[in-house]
């Protein structure tokens, strides 16, 4: 069973604040993803990575940076948080990039920007 953990589970910050969301997977998966989930929009891909040091841009990357420091760890950075970034953030991982590859999701981080 793939294990993806996220921290913190909840975070409140103010406009202009600096936030880092952490994700770790312990199943030696090559691919990791950051999504945001908003009511009425489903999940939207922010950034993804296929290995340490690699970063790819997703569909909604504006205002976000990401860094993959190791195969296990993928971070999402909001350097000047805005209220529009209030959302539920999910990290996911997959073994490979094949279209049939199942993505395993973490429990999510709820971020509120005041």
């Amino acid at each position: 069973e793939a294990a993806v953990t996220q921290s913190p589970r909840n975070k409140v910050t103010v406009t202009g604040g600096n936030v880092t969301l952490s994700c770790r997977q312990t199943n030696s998966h090559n691919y990791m993803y950051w999504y945001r989930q908003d009511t009425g929009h489903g999940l939207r891909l922010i950034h993804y990575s296929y290995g340490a040091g690699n970063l790819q841009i997703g569909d909604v990357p504006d205002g976000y940076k990401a860094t993959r420091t190791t195969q296990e760890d993928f971070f999402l950075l909001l350097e000047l948080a805005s209220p529009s970034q209030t959302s539920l953030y999910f990290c996911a991982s997959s073994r490979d990039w094949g279209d049939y590859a199942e993505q395993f999701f973490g429990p999510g981080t709820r971020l509120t920007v005041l």
Partner: protein
Amino acid sequence: AQSVTQPDARVTVSEGASLQLRCKYSYSGTPYLFWYVQYPRQGLQLLLKYYSGDPVVQGVNGFEAEFIKSNSSFHLRKASVHWSDSAVYFCAVSAGVVGQLTFGRGTRLQVYA
């Protein structure tokens, strides 16, 4: 670009009733199709997936889905729902490019006793 439409934001059914959650996709090629479920305060979990072969695919917990190419649909079904099936269900499509898993907006299922 691909897209997914789940026309029903909420579905309410009684326990023991049958269920169909609708999903329509838009993609010009052969899609990879998925159904995920999200239980309260949890991440998404894969229910089933389809690419080729028998258009009716079986998933976990008695769920199945049928791929109908002529209708661009991939509806999720269950013969008899249980209260524990209450969750949000997402249909998703992959178009063959890494990272491009496109989700629908989700359908919230409420099962009442």
